[in-house]
Structure formats: C-alpha cells, structure tokens
C-alpha cells in the first residue's frame, strides 16, 4: 500500500499523483516504470515513472484515463492508497554518444520524457525539448520542461498553443537550421514515435523511444510485452522499455496494443 500525498488534475482525463514509495524512489532512474493495481479484483498495469525524489521518498506518476484501471486510479485522492505498487522496473535509458540531445514528449508521453530531460540537463547536456499535444488543454509540465531544457518548443495539433502542427515539424526545422543533434529521445503515442523515427533515420540521428506495452507481471514472466527489435524478439519489461527507434517494429507494437479493445468496451459497461 502506497499513500498518495499529492494529486493534481492536469486536464480532464489527465491526473498527476505524487506517491510515497521510498524503496522505489531510492533506486529509480529515468526510463524505468512501475506496475500498479488499484482494486482487489484489478489488473496490473505499467506506468512510466514521471519523476522521483529520493530524499522525500516519493515518485510521480501521470496517468491518462484510457482504460478501466486508469479510470479507477483517477478517482483516488490525496490520502488514498495505491493497493499494489512494484518497481522500479525495466532498464534505465542508455544515452547514445554526444552532448546535444533533443527530448520529445507527445501527449501523456511528456511525463516519462521529463525525467530524461532532467537527468541530461543535470549532467550538462545541451537539451532541446519539444512537447506537443492535440490541444493546449492537454499540455502539461511546460514549466518543468522549460526548467530542465536549454530551449523548449511547444506544438499543438489544433494550433491552440505554440506551433500549429506536429512535434516532428519542429524537429525538421531544427535539423534544417543545422543545429547539432547527437541523439533524440522521444516518448508519446506510437504514430508520433514512428514519425520521429522515420525523420531521424534519414539524417542518421540516433533515436531512443520508450514503449508502454501490455504486460501482466512486469518482471519477464509473461512475455505479453514482446516486441520485435532489429528482427529479434525482446521483452519491453526487462529488455526495455527504451529501444532503438530505428530497429523497432512500430506497426506490430501498435497492433498488439489493440489486443483487448473488445474487452475494454465490456469493462466500461461493467463499471
């Protein structure tokens, strides 16, 4: 049982929680995730760690209410407890060579890219960040990202804030301007990560993406999170969740994420 000590509504269906989890905070590193359960009959879902404070013994989670468990999580308030919380899981993100990094976060993916930018910034990298969402209402962590980036760009699909268009438009512009970019870390919806990968592939810029695959245990036992990387089958939970974007089979991952769409509809009825 882990206590929620802070809750913030980032948008209607987007919630931020600061949770007491000293054991997890102590060892957490950017790129790692937790598994959680919020109901006695609940399922286990993975969530990437959005921030951690070792001294306070807390971790930060951001959840978009897309399924039954995230909706149940969204109903929890300060002082409530998360029933089961396991972590930190997965391998920390390994950074490619070079000191010029671009961190891209799309939608709820802004949360997991934040600790990446924060760490790189602390280590003295030149961090350029791009965050994007469908509309300004769904943007979050703008100040946080600005604080850990040398420069921050914002994009919205509907133009309600920042650049009217996609994060990849901004990335293309940075490349065209001839800015030094050694590597890109991109986290967001699969189509966004795929678009980033397609763009950076042309210029030979190393790109890391982080997956939020479906899994049951999170420790290498179920294999439900399998993904093809460079023709080899890997498990997101123990080999990832960060992978080389240029080797990843995004289409397969997209299909696997749709595996329980029918059942999800049944869950909505049941609630």
């Amino acid at each position: 049982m882990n206590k929620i000590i802070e809750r913030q509504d980032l948008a209607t269906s987007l919630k931020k929680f600061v949770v007491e989890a000293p054991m997890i905070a102590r060892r957490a590193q950017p790129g790692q995730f937790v598994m959680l359960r919020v109901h006695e009959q609940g399922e286990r879902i993975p969530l990437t760690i959005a921030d951690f404070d070792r001294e306070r013994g807390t971790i930060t989670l951001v959840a978009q209410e897309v399924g039954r468990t995230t909706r149940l999580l969204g109903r929890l308030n300060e002082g409530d407890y998360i029933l089961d919380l396991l972590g930190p899981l997965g391998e920390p993100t390994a950074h490619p060579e070079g000191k010029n990094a671009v961190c891209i976060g799309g939608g709820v993916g802004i949360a997991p890219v934040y600790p990446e930018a924060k760490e790189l910034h602390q280590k003295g990298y030149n961090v350029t960040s791009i965050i994007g969402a469908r509309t300004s209402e769904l943007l979050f962590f703008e100040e946080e990202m600005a604080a850990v980036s040398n420069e921050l760009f914002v994009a919205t699909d509907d133009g309600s804030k920042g650049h009217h268009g996609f994060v990849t438009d901004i990335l293309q512009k940075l490349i065209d301007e001839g800015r030094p970019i050694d590597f890109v870390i991109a986290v967001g919806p699969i189509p966004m990560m795929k678009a980033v990968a397609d763009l950076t592939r042309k210029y030979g810029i190393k790109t890391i993406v982080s997956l939020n695959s479906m899994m049951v245990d999170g420790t290498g036992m179920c294999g439900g999170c399998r993904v093809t990387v460079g023709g080899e089958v890997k498990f997101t939970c123990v080999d990832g969740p960060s992978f080389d974007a240029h080797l990843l089979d995004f289409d397969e991952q997209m299909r696997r994420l749709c595996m329980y769409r029918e059942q999800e509809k049944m869950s909505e009825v049941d609630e």
Partner: protein
Amino acid sequence: MARIRPTKHPMPAQPPEERIKNFDEVTHGYSEDVAVQEALRCLQCKNPRCVEGCPVGIDIPGFILKIREKDFQGAIDILKDKNSLPAICGRVCPQEDQCEKLCIVGIKNEPVAIGRLERFAADWEARHSKAEVKPVEATGPKVAVVGSGPAGLTAAGELIKKGYRVTIFEAFHQPGGVLMYGIPEFRLPKAIVEREIEYLKKLGVDIQLNVVVGRTITLEELLTKEGYEAVFVGTGAGLPYFLNIPGENLNGVYSANEFLTRTNLMRAYQFPKWHTPIHIGKRVAVVGAGNVAMDAARTALRLGAEEVTIVYRRSEAEMPARKEEIEHAREEGVRFKLLTNPVEILGNEKGWVTGLRCIKMELGEPDASGRRRPVPIPGSEFEFPVDVVVVAVGQGPNPLIPRTTPGLETSKWGTIVADETGATSIPGVFAGGDVVTGAATVIKAMGAGKIAAEAIDKYIKSKQKEEK
C-alpha cells in the same frame, strides 16, 4: 491373508462433461472408508522402497499405517514431519515417477495410491484439526527468502522453526509463486495454497509483497545494509520460451505463463468482475505436451473454447506430462496432433492469429535426452485454423537476480550454480528449486528448500563460532 486388491481405489471425480464448465477441483478425494481400505493394500515393507523415491524422505509406511488404524491426526503428523505442504504434494507430485514407482505392490498390481492417501490425510486435517498454530519465538539472525513458490515457502518454514527471523520477498501482489499463478484452480485450489501461507504467517514468517529483488533492492543490499545473515533464492523458472517461428507476435499468441497467469492469479475467467481480460478463442492450439501444456489446454476448454488441440512434435510415449493429466485432458475432449511441429503461425491483415502451419514428424535416432529425435517428413506441411495459440514449450530461470548480482555464478542455461546443499558462488547466498535445476517439480523444489535451510543453519552457526 486375503488377496490384495489389484487396483488402486478409484478417485472420485467430477464427470468430464460437468467439469469442463467450471474451475472447481476435478477430483474430490477419498472418503475415510476408502482411505482405510486403500491403506490396507500397503504391505508395510520392512525396507520400504517407496521412501527412497520420495525427494523429502517421508515415512510412507508409517503414515499409511496410521490411516489404516484410523489415527488420521497421527498420519498427518508423520507427513508434516518431513513435508510441510502435504495438501499440495498429494495433488501435484508425480508419484508415479517417485514413491509409487518403487512400491512393491506395484510390481504385479497397481501400486498403493500413496499420493491420494497423502492428500486424504492433509484434507482431513484441514477439516478437523482445531490445533491453534503457535508463533515460533524467532529471535535468531535474519534470513531473507527470495520468491514465495514451493522452494521459498519450504525454506521459510524450516528456517523459522530453527528460530531464525525470516522475511520472504515476493514480486507479485500475492504469495505462492507457481502454485498461485501457474497451476490451475481445478488441479490445486488456491484456498489450499492460501491456507499453507497463512500457517507460515502464523508461525511468524514476514512476507513482503511487491518487492522484486534485483530491482527494488539488490541481493547485495540484503546481505550488507539490511543485515540478513543469509539469503535463499528460490525465484523459479519464470522465463517463457518461445518457438522462434514466424507469426509468434501476432495477437492471440500467448506464452503458457501469460495464459495461465491471466486466468489463475488474475482470475480472467471471471472477467469483467475481475478486470484482467483474456482472449478465449474458438479454436485453440497448445504447443507442447508437458504438465503446463495440459493445464493450458484444459484451462482453454473451461474458458469456453470449442476445440482445443495439443500440438506436439514427438509421439505419445515421449509426452512429458503426467499420465493422469493426459488422461484427464483426453476425457475432457482435448485433441492431440502428435508427431506434428508448428513451422509458422498464420495471421490476417489486422495482426490476429488465423491458423497454424505444421509439418509432420517421424522419430529418428535417440538424442541427448535419450528420447528419439523427431525428424520432419519432407512435403508433409499442412495448415489448420486456430484463433489462439498457447506456447507451452518450457520455461527458463528468471534472469533478474543473476543479472543484478555481480559474482553470482550461472550456467550456460542461465541457472544459478549451486552445490548439493544449495550454496552458490557467493558466501551466504543459497539457491534451490527451478532457478537451479531448470523447470522441474514442486516436490523437488521443496526438497531443495529444505536442504538449503539446513545448510543455511550450519553456515550461520559456523560463522557465529568464528566470530567468537
């Protein structure tokens, strides 16, 4: 002396057409009368061979004699002297390869039903025993147990009885390991596992859930910062093997681990009341023919699949599952495509499984395992329609602890190298069960947990002597 009854007393069971509609236990167990009658078949050998076949050395004629005398409490006391989990072992031990294989009665007739009698005694105790469990006064050094499967539970039980303060670390939100996530309810009711765990808790064993050693805390930290004098690693064989054939990442393909964990631990069979979903499928193929494959096939039937087929590359004689499990599966309507090897999983444009392409096999020369090697018959490829495929071709040791513990020696198969006492390459670190042997049986893991507990006791005592 009256002539001995040639066959075991049959085990009362749910009829197949009934039981495939529920997840309740298939067999009901002997009544007191039948148990006593079966106990009369035991010859009470002076040099009982059956005991040699038992990985934990239970006094088998001793407990059977007590049943014959209707001293059922006496019988369970003898069992528990050597085996802390008799209700579990009576159900899932492969007795036909162990005690019953060596039973003298079994030379001319069917052996004594030792397993069924063990289960009877354990179930009798659960129903009748009023004895309160008293906590052990554990004031000794701290010992950590990693994993709460059969090896870990046994080690924990033995260690606390020796006065050690024992903490079990479990990654899942529920203790029990493979007994909870792997073996289905209809073969091992979860209430039985929960009862055994409650017993350990009452003795004073501390169970920390949601802690994955290697990630949340390292083995090294347990021994240094956390002050544990020794650690027992019983993390099992949790890493699923796949076939490495095209189509394996299609939607609808499961490892047996995932299929069974969703159903057993996460209760997907009660979806949507329980929240974890599973794809049931109309036609299910299960690849492999071990106990896990039989569990998966029978689970698929109970979930509501119309047609379930075991696909296995060798012949009936080589199937590694227990005979009883194969018989149960057959009675329930599971089909068998033997000498058949999958070469590709077929799918549609949306990424869902539609069929299995296989090739017919024949048996050639014996291989390293002593079994005749299956060889493909050229040109014999064929396809059949399925919408779910469960891959049950074995599991390897979980790699998390070896990966995060410098200096811990492992084999080329990834198993932890341990001597016969469970001692590993790191002083104070002991290991046992599937993580050492590769996937084996519940009772062997329990045996290893027990032996390691003895070794840990010796290790700590000799260390204390040195320090004085």
